[in-house]
């Protein structure tokens, strides 16, 4: 295994009394696309600022390419940041903006212009060289900010909610482009967002943060399919959550008592302990008894057509406070008011230590 490009070791940070990061450690591999995902206030921006050198952590160290960069100034780090508000210099042309970093390195005008054009071409804005930032649309500005950061060839590119200001359609489009550009240049990207769909669309490595801690990290498929915590199960996509207690454990299988009845799970859990079971909407089955684990009966309260699928909300007949969220194929014929059996495959049940 190669040495990590970025190694964050036991970093903590406080603003005054407020502990914003609590003993965070993280390794970033070269060429990877890392997403920091978490709700507002969870410390994502702070962590990114520590990487960029805008904030010096209260405790812990940051190594980049094996060197201790904890207190190195932003200008002297192999990182560059794309700011959420882009921070394009409004008095300079697009070309001037993109060339700014090179100018600071003393690169001569002609080379600078050439490289800036190249970088602009990379983001599909070759023709914008002479425009002023205010003449561009939001998505175009975003790309100029990207070009400006990429042109100085950083080892790590930091992006703080780079798509937050864009509307949904543009955001989707820019996601595809970001991913493509990252593949083309091979730079490690670290990208902050609180949009879990964005995370899944982009990440090689997904880091879920909550309240200053890393709750879970790994490839997005793993984080989605086997979330480590209850937080991560509900933040990274929806889940139906069954709170229960372990009634019996036998062989590597436990029986958990839940409001929807006893459920078998494939883990050896300590008898009597409280657990939460999470089931993804696409794994819930309504009607028939197709699943290996029965979850009782439920009354359908809402069916929303979502194009390629139907999102169904149903309330458990056994416990009206329990709501099932299921995704059914577009062709499904359920109607609000139907009462149906709910089930799923035992293998699909995620056990969360509560």
């Amino acid at each position, binding site marked *: 295994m190669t040495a990590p490009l970025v190694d964050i070791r036991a970093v903590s940070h406080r603003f005054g009394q407020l502990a914003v990061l609590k003993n965070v450690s993280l390794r970033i591999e070269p060429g990877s696309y890392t997403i920091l995902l978490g709700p507002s206030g969870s410390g994502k921006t702070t962590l990114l600022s520590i990487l*960029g*050198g*805008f904030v010096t952590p209260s405790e812990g160290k940051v190594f980049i390419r094996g060197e201790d960069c904890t207190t190195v*100034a*932003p*200008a*002297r780090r192999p*990182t*560059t*940041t794309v*700011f*959420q*508000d882009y*921070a394009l*210099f*409004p*008095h300079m042309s697009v070309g001037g903006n993109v060339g*700014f*970093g090179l*100018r*600071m*390195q003393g690169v001569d005008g002609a080379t600078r212009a050439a490289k800036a054009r190249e970088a602009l071409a990379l983001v599909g804005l070759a023709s914008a060289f002479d425009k002023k930032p205010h003449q561009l649309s939001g998505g175009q500005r975003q790309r100029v900010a990207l070009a*400006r950061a990429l042109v*100085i060839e950083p080892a790590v590119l930091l992006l703080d909610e780079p798509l937050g200001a864009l509307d949904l359609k543009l955001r989707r489009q820019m996601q595809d482009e970001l991913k493509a550009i990252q593949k083309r240049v091979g730079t490690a990207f670290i990208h902050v967002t609180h949009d879990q769909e964005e995370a899944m669309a982009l990440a090689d490595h997904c880091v879920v943060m909550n309240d200053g801690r890393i709750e879970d990290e790994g490839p997005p498929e793993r984080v989605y399919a086997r979330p480590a915590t209850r937080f991560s199960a509900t933040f990274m996509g929806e889940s139906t959550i069954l709170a229960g207690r372990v009634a019996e454990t036998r062989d590597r299988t436990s029986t958990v008592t839940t409001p929807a009845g006893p459920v078998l799970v494939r883990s050896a859990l300590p008898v009597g302990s409280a657990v939460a079971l999470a089931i993804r909407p696409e794994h819930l089955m309504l009607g028939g008894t197709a699943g290996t684990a029965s979850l009782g009966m439920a009354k359908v309260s809402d069916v929303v057509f979502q194009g390629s699928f139907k999102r169904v909300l149903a309330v458990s007949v056994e416990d009206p406070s329990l709501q099932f969220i299921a995704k059914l194929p577009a062709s499904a014929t359920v109607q609000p008011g139907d009462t149906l059996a709910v089930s799923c495959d035992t293998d699909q049940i995620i056990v969360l230590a509560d």
Partner: protein
Amino acid sequence: MSSNGNSGNALPRAGRALPWALVTPALGWTLLFFVLPFIAMGFSSLTAHEGGGFTLSNYSQFFTNPSYWQAMVNSLQVTAIVTLLSVLLAYPFAWILAEQVPERWQRLALMLAVLPFWTSYVVRSYSWLLVLAQNGVINRALTGSGLVAEPLQLANTRLATVTGFVHFFVMLLTLTIFANLKQLSPSYRKAAADLGAGPVRTFLHVILPLTLPGIMVGAFLTFVLCIGDYITPQILGGNNELLMPQLVMMQIGRRGDFPLASALSIILMAVVTVAYLACARWLKIERA
């Protein structure tokens, strides 16, 4: 500007008069008490002091009598020096307040910096006279500490006039430049630092150009207020040279020569207009 179009309100027909009812008082006031006086002054400037009658002599006096146009030269020199000095002094000061002083102390620091603004303007000039006098605080301090043998002539000079003006305008410009610096998104600074600019180059390439419009507004305000001010040169300048406002007031105060005073005012106004046109592109008010 993009959504300004929203303001295209469709009022019911009965309400069409409303917008005009709103803006007419202000427009009327401006027409009646600003534009009309100007016209009156224009007419007045074309009449003779004694006996009325149309004449251009009030204007020709200005252009042919060197001691008259010298007042304009003096005014322009003093105003230029004051504007430049004030900006040069105020900018670093505003910058220190905005960037070096911790956030929680900034309001207080700024308040303190503009507090003397609220002493009476006339009194402020007079205080400078006391400070700069032959036996004033500065000369006492200088001779007392043996720095100079003879007291310096500070009061009753152009230097004194400039000092009084700069004092006032440093406060004014500190306020406007401070506000400008605070309005800048912190990410500009971060972005520049991130791209390898040190503090100096961040300042030169990013902060300074971005605050330039604010500086221009402040500088123009300084220009207008300075070139039209009578008090400061009158109290501090010792009548060793005349500035335009003094010349204007002299026509009224000594001889009641309103036509000549009007002509001189209009000439002064023309100069301010030229200055305005020079920085017009920075002087727009827009809605937030």
